[in-house]
């Protein structure tokens, strides 16, 4: 889909890696959720791809900590969220304890 949207192989790999990390977070913390991809159009004529990873799991109590490199509450490498932030152009996370987590990321076509 990223290739069809006009991204290079290299950018498509970045996007695929980000999706893999986001999906992994859902599986390991919330058990179920959804990952949605959709093309987006920016205000200045740019196009891109937005990925929304959403779950209704336990939520993240400390977002600052969860976004810090090397921090993990599941025994992982702790690179998931900060890594995804580096892979993508835009990163937004909404989460509160008890009501799930939604991560929205966008990669713009150069």
């Amino acid at each position, binding site marked *: 889909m990223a290739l069809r949207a006009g991204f290079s*192989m*290299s950018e*498509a*790999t*970045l996007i*695929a*890696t980000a999706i*893999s*990390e986001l999906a*992994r977070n859902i599986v390991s913390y919330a058990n179920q959720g959804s990952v949605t991809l959709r093309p987006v159009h920016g205000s200045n004529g740019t196009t891109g791809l937005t990925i929304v990873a959403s779950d209704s799991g336990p939520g993240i109590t400390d977002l600052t900590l969860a976004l810090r*490199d090397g921090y993990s509450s599941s025994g*992982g*490498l702790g*690179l*998931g969220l*900060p*890594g*995804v932030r*580096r*892979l993508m152009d835009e990163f937004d996370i909404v989460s509160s304890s008890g009501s799930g987590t939604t991560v929205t990321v966008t990669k713009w076509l150069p």
Partner: protein
Amino acid sequence: MQVPILKQGGVLIATIQAALSDADLLELRTALVQQVVRYRSSGVIVDVTAMDVMDSFASRTLLEISRMIRLRGAATVIVGIQPEVAFAMVQLGLTLEDIPTALDLEEGLAYLQQKARSIN
């Protein structure tokens, strides 16, 4: 999907042929460690040429494989990381620092042979 492991002299070669699930990766880890013991191998090559995504779990499992095999006294080389994959891995923060890497299978074998010679 199972990863075939070939025995070539004192070296085991595991060639990943498609995207692997987490369970497949863990199975590969177990199989490699067991076979290193069974065949008294001195080196292991994991060929990841066919992997088009390397996420944090795959990296961590490769690191674990290499550390377990090192405890056994053998060396592990990862070969064939695609340029796009290398780009994404570095952005994500994955470096596989402890594990030697090589361009392809041939270079990987050369690395292990050189290492074996320097010990003898």
